[in-house]
């Protein structure tokens, strides 16, 4: 059972509080009316199933109810980072080694590498009033 760091609650909680929502960073075509059936089908139905690093969308369903992203290794189940909506992952399949070089902050106990705080904090504010 996973131990997940919620980037909004700023702490690790048991997996039971969370719910996975599939692959992260799926963008809805900006102009659905004018995209081809193939583009629309890709958006609707096609997902990656990588062996190794995978970016996933999760929601803290029984907590703050916020959606956020997880970078997870599908072979070891290690969670390499969690980061809020609107952020990009720092650990990617292409640049898996980068996290050491950049010395990204690790959660206490070295369990889970936690993404840096959002550069643009506005993205994560509840009320951009």
């Amino acid at each position, binding site marked *: 059972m996973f131990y997940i760091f919620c980037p909004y609650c700023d702490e690790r909680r048991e997996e039971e509080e969370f719910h996975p*929502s599939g692959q992260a960073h799926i963008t809805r075509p900006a102009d659905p009316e004018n995209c081809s059936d193939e583009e*629309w089908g890709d958006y609707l139905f096609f997902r990656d199933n990588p062996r190794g690093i995978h970016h996933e969308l999760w929601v803290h*369903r029984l907590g703050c*109810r916020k*959606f956020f992203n997880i970078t997870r290794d599908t072979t070891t189940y290690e969670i390499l980072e969690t980061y809020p909506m609107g952020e990009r992952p720092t650990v990617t399949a292409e640049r898996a080694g980068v996290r050491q070089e950049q010395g990204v902050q690790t959660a206490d106990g070295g*369990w889970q590498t936690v993404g840096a705080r959002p550069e643009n904090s506005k993205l994560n504010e509840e009320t951009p009033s």
Partner: protein
Amino acid sequence: MSQHNRLNQGGRIDRSRSLSFTFNGQRYQGFAGDTLASALLANGVDIVNRSFKYSRPRGIIAAGADEPSAIMQLGASEAAQVPNVRATQQALYDGLVARSTNGWPSVQRDVMSWVGRLGGHLMPPGFYYKTFMAPASMWMTYEKWIRKGAGLGRSPAASDPDIYDHLNQHCDVLVIGAGPAGLGAALSAARAGARVILCDEQEEMGGSLLDSRESLDDAPAADWVAKAVAELDAMESVTLLPRTTANGYHDHNFVTLHERRTEHLADTAAGAGREGEVRSRLHRVRAEQVVLASGAHERPLVYANNDVPGNMVAGAVSTYIRRYGVVPGQKLVLTTNNDHAYRAALDWQEAGRDVVAVVDSRANPDGELVQQARDSGIRVITGSAVMEGKGNQRVSGARVVAIDTPRFVVTGSIEELDCDTIASSGGYSPVVHLASHTGKRPQWRDDLLGFVPGEVKGMHYAGGVQGIYALDESLADGARAGAEAARAGGFEAAGAMTLPAAASRRESATEALYQVPHEKTSLRAPKQFVDFQNDVTAAAIELATREGFESIEHVKRYTALGFGTDQGKLGNINGMAIAARCLHRSIPEVGTTVFRPNYTPVTFGAIVGRHCRELFDPERYTALHQWHVENGAEFEDVGQWKRPWYFPQKRRADGQERLETMHEAVARECLAVRQGVGILDASTLGKIDIQGPDAREFLGRVYTNKWAKLAPGRVRYGVMCKDDGMVMDDGTTSCLGDNHFLMTTTTGGAASVLEWLELWHQTEWPELQVYFNSVTDHWATITVTGPEARKLFSEVTDIDLDREQFKFMDWREGRVAGVPARVFRISFTGELAFEINVQANYALHVWKTLFAHGEKYDLTPYGTETMHVLRAEKGLIIAGQDTDGSVTPEDLGMHWAVGYDKPFAWIGKRALNRPDTAREDRKQLVGLKPKDPKVVLEEGAQIVLDPDQAIPMTMMGHVTSSYYSPVLESGFALAVLKGGRKRMGETVYLPMSNGTTHEAEVVSTIFVDPKGERQNV
């Protein structure tokens, strides 16, 4: 029979406390501190079970979790039955009742053993599959008898009287195993300031130190154990869990511990004088760091007849003598490939019994223990091994022969030694189980002749589990691992730990011997057992490799090596070594299988904890639940909700009073709503409060229809699609104010719709200012519906109910029965209806006030079944019943609810333009009227056009909702049918599984009041 194998002194038992127990109906005595196994051995009980496949007599082989054969069924009463208990792990208590799990009519005289003896060669691996293959339909019958013949215990037929708990725990360092390495690790981590949990599966902490010949600080090792445990016990940051097995290691250092709190005292908590206390606990530990100090299991050597009672692993012999004061025989032959096993011979001799010989496979063993044995006058036969045990019910001799290990042949003549016990040792296998539970493969080490655990993040290894067996090294390794784990958790030790002084011994190297060569081939020699629990022999593994099973995973599945509750504790490495020899590969090339949780069996009680009976799944009650109960409602589960299904009333017929059937009750309730007035508790409907300046825009994007012009005070029905254009949920949404809406969802969809709204807001449109909150539980919903609804309702409210002032699809705020309420003129019955929302804690008051005024109108409470009939008569769908994720709004005939010209590409719009969603032959919602009005079609029944077509018939659709209508006096149904809307008036057929075929006419989905006038009055 007295305890004739019991020594007069020694061991960690209390001879002043005699305990009485029964095994297979026979009464025996043991002492406090015994295990069931040590007590049985003390009493000279040789046969404790029959083997799984061949029904061979089996005795106790080991002394701990690695025991494969002494599997017991415990419990004095039916309710207290526990299967699958290892006698070696069960503490003895007064009144313990144990039975063998196998053997019929008894373990002494077992019928099946003749099958095993005569048919042994006829029962190769895969025997059952090969023999009982055909006919397939008979397998269930075969299996019943095979299982009776085999059997590994049975579950109780009566309800468990005990309670069990789950505890969620957090710690900095979890230490698994309290032997020398574990105690060292716990001490060093705790002294550094870490929060430590130390668990150990045995009755006492100390592990191998409890039966060790070694001294620590010039005192018996057990004295140091007592001191170490006392120090840990006194520390507030340390939790000690004896009788607690770490059974599963899961992702991110989540470890499940099974703590047995009363099982060592009695077979129920009450029987232990602990009435109402928890019998066992499952600790769900989230550990920052784990130190695995699970030690090693000794491997037996594989030789012919190595399963006859009297064959034991060498270390177990020492354990029984030193810890329990039991010598399990008179004359011992020890066969070994290493030095460490010599302890068994020394202990045996010191206990005053005969050591016939030590048979060592090595040519020139010269370690200190070997020398000590020779000095004590023990005969040491080198370059040889026990090739075969003699005897049927008990070992009567050992056939010893010189062997050439690398060439796997016997080289000399056979000497037969007279003995009743053969102890064997083939080296040690680190207990890597937990480290491989998450899929990490163990690594072979040639220098250790064993697998050590692979690297697992957050896990540290100490002592025997990584092949460090010498006491002084093991203690030091534990201290190191504990300090490292503490450091990784942020705790630094003040200085190096002082360790107790232990002797360091010179040992000669262990030889790589697993299976002893026999004068005959493996297939012709008497059975040489590898996995005792699953009756897997060396010949079976050899045969499997010959039949083409090359992968060790396949060999495992073909032969059952390492299956079941044993999980390969004794046999796995030997089995792999034999497979490697047959395949001409090395052991690391063959590799190992993966061990699975649980390490030892866990009772269902502990797994379930408190999550049973009414707490199995949370039940949700509406504010009116108690009233429904008091008024005799039958309930239906809708998600977690308990909803009134129907309210059966008493009826008098033929001078007798009886309750209405469901059919009668529903007919009465339906007619009451259509002709008078009915009342429904609709509180479970999902309610989502939506606020914000962009709330209206947001609604327009998630619903298929238009929301731009909905004025405060108005209500609109909306359909929600996924982006694939398929209907996901529906409901009404009311405009409470310009920036404030109340959305209702289906009862089951409440949580998922809220998450859906949050998903789109947070991921796609964070720029919209809109907020959602669930208010399902805050508002109770009471529906008053029927032609008399207005008259009744006007008596209890100050709201103007004039039909021109308060129109259909309006909502008003006012007082109902004196309390603030929102009232919605929406209808799910087709009749005039008022849905009253009041604060949940006023619900009962409002409900009762309505009944006080309703008596003269014969106000009738109705349940979900009537609600379903009424809505279906009107062709109103239930998302999830009439839709299944492949139905578009168009398929439902809801073109009117789709705003194609809305400016924003709302969810589902693009997909509704796909060619597939525009097909004319899609399944469309239609009504079905059975030709025979008495027929109520089965929901799910398939529709065909030609009932005479050969199977497989062309299926055109299926029934989604079907009921009997008391108004129509006929059955009726909703269905989805290919191209259905163009088939109005056609006849379709519904072939049933019993061979009958129903005929039905395709009709409109609206069966009652097609113009919708009744709800508008």
